[in-house]
């Protein structure tokens, strides 16, 4: 399983810990939104929480408190045809101003990488693309009509700038 961030393969010791498993002190953990919301204020640091994983039905607005303490938000795509994660990503980046790592996990396929990148993801855990494919997939288009979380210039604006 490759973990690609900013176009490079990386390692991350943080692991997702299911709600029914106890957190081990000192081991960086990624936890569910529900568990995150149940944490008392001091517990966040003590439990070495690296990040939170959002499921498709989760409302990112519930992350607003404590978002600053996270270095990682994972958005899960249990089925790649379920596109709710694209809206979650746009909200986190553009409305909530989240600037930490935004990682797509689950069914992350080569041909969705560009849409994900545009929606604000900068990291991808995927079995279906290596670095070469990642670079090919994310370079397939040279212009975009609409603005998105990636901040790429839009065709609408580029035309009037000529």
């Amino acid at each position, binding site marked *: 399983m490759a973990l690609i961030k900013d176009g490079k393969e990386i390692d991350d010791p943080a692991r997702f810990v299911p709600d029914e498993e106890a957190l081990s002190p000192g081991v960086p953990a990624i936890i569910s939104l529900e568990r995150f919301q149940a944490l008392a204020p001091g517990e966040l640091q003590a439990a070495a929480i690296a990040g939170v994983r959002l499921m*498709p039905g989760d409302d990112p607005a519930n992350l607003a408190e404590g978002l600053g303490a996270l270095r990682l938000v994972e958005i899960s795509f249990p089925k*790649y*045809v*379920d*596109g*709710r994660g*694209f*809206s*979650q990503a*746009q909200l986190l980046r*553009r*409305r909530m101003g989240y600037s930490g790592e935004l990682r797509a996990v689950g069914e992350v*396929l080569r*041909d*969705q990488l*560009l*849409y*994900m990148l*545009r*929606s604000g993801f900068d990291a991808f855990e995927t079995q*279906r693309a290596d670095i070469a494919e990642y670079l*090919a997939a994310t370079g*397939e*288009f*040279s*212009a*975009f*009509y*609409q*603005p*998105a979380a990636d901040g790429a210039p*839009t*065709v*609408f*604006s*580029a*035309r*009037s700038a000529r």
Partner: protein
Amino acid sequence: MYRYDEFDAQIVRDRVRQFRGQVERRLSGALLEDEFKPLRLQNGVYLQLHAYMLRVAIPYGQLSPVQMRQLAHIARTYDRGYGHWTTRQNIQFNWVALKDIPDVLDALADVGMHAIQTSGNCIRNVTSDHFAGAAGDEVKDPRPWCEIIRQWSTLHPEFAFLPRKFKIAVTGAEEDRAAIRVHDIGLHIRERGGACGFEVHVGGGQGRTPHVAAKISDFVPEEDILDYLEAILRVYNRLGRRDNKYKARIKILVSETGEAEFRKLVEDEFAAQTGAEKIALPRAEIDRIEAYFAPPDLPERPASSKVFEAAKAERPRFALWAEANLHAHKVPGYISVTASHKPVGAIAGDVTDAQMEALADLAEAFGQGDLRVTHAQNVVLPHVALDDLPEVFAKLEAAGLAAPNEGLISDMIVCPGLDYCNLANARSIPVSQEIARAFSDYDDQADIGQLHLNISGCINACGHHHVGHIGVLGVDKKGEEFYQITFGGRADEAAAIGEIAGKGLRAEDVPPAIRRVVDRYREIRTDRSERFIDVYARVGADPFKEALYGVD
């Protein structure tokens, strides 16, 4: 009409290259069929009963002669010499080989066309009034906004994996010829104190649970409309049902949430957008796109034409055609012509390469180089001089496109049905042909007057039976085809879903039953100006139900 600039051209080329790669990976096995499916669908490629089908986008139905000729070339080279106009103003090719599709897409890109988002759970081709820019009753030409919406929705990264397909229609005329109230979003251009904006309808649709859309805003100023559309789409993408594909359309979200609550969700999302989230659509860009749709430079002509009047007086067949197939133009001395693709016995929407060539020639010689595909599966020449009508008629007649039946009972909307489609429960085309034969006399059809008869071969309602004045729905009952009849549906500004008359009929009983219904209509109408749908509004369905089942 709109012409691609370097950005449009580049994006379409990029898309073809991307799809070529996807097809190669699929053919090599690197891409699994399950993974390939949504990708091919978002390029209009379906796997049908017999072969792959390619659906090509014709944004808001408009084509140039050059584009029309390219479609003819594709039909000849990659298909069996014909194509099929769809009810969303697109064209489908039913016999294209998968390996050839990237080449077809390249051929389309050569003339500024594509197949992007003609299928799949994304924002589909934007449709509009086929008389846009020509109609006498138009407040504002909707095509510039259709084009802006086309661009905004093309490859939108957030809305490529919606719960279900999403269809937007725009009209700018009082009479709604774009069926906006049976679309996921219907936009009606309104003017308020000199400013332009949109009345917004959401959650209309047909299929197994038909709904007329709810009006959620009276007026969204044009500079806000893309942001407002984003708000609707985001609410839908996040909250639309994904547990059951038959409940996944936005109409279900609107009806389950309730109109008032849904409106609030959209208004809240719209209000929450930060400045950085707003779509910068500079005025200069709107002006630039509007300029492409400037009215054609039509030489001044007298409001009436001696040539036209004389031809009508001399030739009854021409007069009959002129009565049915012409639509008032905003400029005196001009008119919009509908080339009927539905002579009695034809397959609704089918068009041969030779017919496409003939239409391209006509548009060039007599029609300002402008062609429109209608959602009723015909083609319109929007700007024709009255003086030229006899010649245009003769050429249409030679091409088999001069049936005098626009809007009449044989101008049916018909889905492909069990003959082509793997969803269908029953045949539609043969039934439509038999009904047309029962009304084969065009004088008789003219006397009946406007009557929209629509036929679907299954509950998915691709043949728009819910909004036919008379609707016919094919159902399968223990392996036998039956046809349910509905009355009173309409897709216009008074949109309504037809009511089911009663038990289904066998295929062979449908034409005589419809004949009895039409005879009853003629008995009870006050005069010829009272259309079938008007009589239905006045007296209800009962007399027609009695006639349908032969009860005296």
